[in-house]
């Protein structure tokens, strides 16, 4: 990789190992970021392939390709791998590479912790999917199959794929917590002199609050799955009515983690997008302070609204009203963010290179995701949407544009800095338009399916749902293909391309654009003074 081939300035006795050992031992934030990003893209492709099998089965009514028990494993792993294997590691990769560069620090605050945080991930991923592949080969009962929400008491019935998944979740949680600690310490303690809290880049703000939320919620999930493990094998009854427990307790614990989790997926991108908008509109960010305050608002609100995922579980009137109104409140800080993004664009001097396309795609599509969230917040109508395809479409409009378009926007934006080459713009445009079309063709029909009454997590369906399912499947394969364009574009850019300037994009601002492209292995060993 070109990022690694710079020479070391004299005076350091540097003798980095090469080959596999280098990657295992590295404490360099750029190396670790590359590993996070590579891991994330591999996970994206695996989970994507899984859901294409699902969509292929749903192409027509009847069971053609897979049996229901296998189908349940596919949808579960798709969700878990996308959230924990792709989205969070991709954002962590971006943060690892760019936070030190953006705040003028030589590396992350805790480089060895950084290494551990990454290396927990590959074993965790193996633990998660191993039972699935073994099951495919006829060994064992298969992977976890309860949906990513792992509701009790269904979770009690799963085979040892569930136990592996529990251990995997523990490991993924520890990795997130370690990375979050690193981010918080770095952002708070390692900024270049002169870069006050209110001057630091919005990406740093976004990731700081992401990290704070993660430290709060991941341990709670760990507690919850530990209790599940105890119920499964050690005779406890946390989730079992027979012993004085309650299955709904699991739902509370899970969603106490699960809802803030979606803001964990959002905030890094919300912090990243203003940078891209500013660069391609050649205009300073609008409403910096307002955006920071909004992020605070989102952070606080995110932990007090969880039971809007549980409206049909049998909640009192008071509970439904509270969770409905508090959930609606989140629309306010989100609206502030949208306003500021659009105001940044307004009356700029706009060009539409690939990073800008993906940033705009995120704003438009995530906007629709957020608006449909408002609809779901209505506790009385929610039963008509809950656990049906309207919900599936809503959260894909919320999550895919954010975690995938957002991450790709960041990757495309910073690829010149990492590789020293400009990417192939034509390929980038192709990627964007194929993805945009594929995504909408996949998910707009799913809104209609939900409204017509199709539940989720079913491998076969009544005939009235056939047409839209067919359309959705076609869209899914188009969307899937777009990811291959992305991978090809990245590889092509790594290997060569037009030479990139230090300031690779004309309007880009920030400390990261003051170092050469590609960025040297060690940067900012002397911290710059910021005015």
């Amino acid at each position, binding site marked *: 990789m070109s990022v690694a081939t710079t020479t070391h300035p004299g005076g350091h*006795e540097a003798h980095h190992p090469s080959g596999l050992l280098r990657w295992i031992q590295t404490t360099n*934030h750029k190396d670790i970021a590359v590993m996070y990003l590579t891991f994330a893209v591999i996970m994206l492709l695996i989970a994507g392939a899984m859901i294409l099998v699902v969509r292929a089965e749903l192409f027509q009514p009847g069971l053609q390709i897979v049996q229901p028990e296998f189908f349940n494993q596919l949808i579960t792993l798709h969700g878990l791998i996308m959230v924990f294997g792709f989205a969070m590691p991709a954002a962590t990769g971006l943060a690892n590479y760019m936070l030190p560069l953006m705040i003028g620090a030589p590396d992350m605050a805790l480089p060895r*912790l950084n290494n551990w945080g990454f290396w927990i991930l590959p074993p965790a991923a193996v633990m998660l999917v191993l039972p699935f592949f073994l099951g495919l080969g006829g060994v064992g009962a298969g992977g976890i199959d309860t949906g990513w929400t792992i509701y009790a008491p269904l979770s009690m019935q799963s085979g040892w794929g569930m136990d592996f998944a529990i251990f995997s979740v523990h490991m993924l949680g520890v990795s997130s917590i370690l990375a979050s600690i690193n981010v*918080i*310490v770095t952002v708070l303690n390692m900024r270049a002199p002169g870069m006050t809290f209110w001057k630091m880049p919005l990406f740093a703000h976004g990731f700081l609050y992401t990290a704070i939320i993660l430290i709060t919620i991941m341990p709670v999930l760990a507690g919850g799955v530990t209790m599940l493990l105890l119920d499964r094998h050690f005779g406890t009854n946390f989730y079992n009515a*027979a012993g004085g427990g309650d299955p709904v*307790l699991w739902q509370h614990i899970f969603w106490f983690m699960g809802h803030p989790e979606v803001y964990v997926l959002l905030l890094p991108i919300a912090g990243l997008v203003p940078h891209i908008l500013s660069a391609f509109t050649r205009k300073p960010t609008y409403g910096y302070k307002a955006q920071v305050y909004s992020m605070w608002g989102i952070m606080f609100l995110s932990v007090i609204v969880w039971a809007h995922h549980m409206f049909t579980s*049998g909640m009192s009137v008071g509970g439904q009203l509270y969770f409905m109104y508090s959930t609606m409140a989140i629309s306010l800080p989100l609206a502030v963010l949208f306003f500021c993004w659009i105001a940044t664009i307004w009356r700029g001097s706009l060009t539409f290179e690939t990073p800008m396309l993906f940033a705009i795609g995120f704003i438009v599509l995530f906007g629709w995701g957020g608006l449909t969230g408002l609809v779901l917040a209505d506790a009385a109508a929610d039963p008509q949407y809950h656990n049906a395809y309207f919900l599936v479409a809503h959260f894909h409009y919320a999550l895919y544009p954010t975690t995938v378009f957002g991450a790709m926007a960041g990757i495309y934006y910073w690829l010149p800095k990492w590789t020293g080459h400009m990417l192939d713009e034509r390929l980038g445009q192709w990627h964007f338009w194929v993805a945009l079309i594929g995504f909408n063709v996949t998910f707009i029909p799913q809104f209609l399916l939900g409204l017509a009454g199709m539940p989720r997590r079913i491998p076969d369906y009544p005939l009235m749902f056939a047409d839209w399912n067919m359309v959705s499947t076609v869209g899914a394969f188009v969307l899937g293909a777009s990811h291959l364009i992305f991978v090809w574009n990245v590889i092509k850019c790594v290997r060569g391309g037009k030479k990139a300037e230090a300031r690779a994009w004309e309007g880009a601002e920030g400390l990261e654009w003051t170092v050469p492209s590609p960025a040297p292995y060690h940067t900012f060993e002397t911290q710059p003074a910021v005015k």
Partner: protein
Amino acid sequence: MNASDSTLEIAAESGAGPADSLEQRNRRLMWRLVTLAVLCAGFGFALVPLYDVICRVTGLNGRTNAMAVAAPSNTQVDTTRWVKVEFLSHSMPGVAIQFAPQEFSIDVRPGALAQINYVATNTSDRVFIGRAIPSVTPAVAAPHFKKIECFCFNEQTFQPGETRVMPVVFTVDPDMARELGTVTLSYAFFEAPKAAPKDLM
């Protein structure tokens, strides 16, 4: 040469901070954050008793008192209205108990003591040990439904073929909302789990 060396150099070069080096400050913050993570894990486990308390206070999930409460001595009986109390029974799969209330519903005055009998028969040829888990709906009525005597407070042991009449003595609080006209009490009969059930209240 690693990054933490260079950060120390920076701290020295720029004459940073009074007593603490950057590395010390980083470590201190790191341990504070680890403590925070551990506290949050503790919170996760604390959610178990917390949830029970909230359920008990709000009646969420239809939970009623799991231990006997004394018969209220000085409660006024509300003679201005009747509350219909319905009774359901549910034997979970694999449970050999045939189990039903003697009546489907009775009308009670809030504040007055009432009694209903459930009849249970062990239809198998072995000893059965089980526990009846009560649930009241609507959930908002649950905190107002007080059981003075109930077979659900303890494990029940049945000899093979044994039939038993199991009374429930209860009262409905007069301060239950007026518009609640019907309350349903159900028992789900489970086989006693191998571990001792958690008496959380």
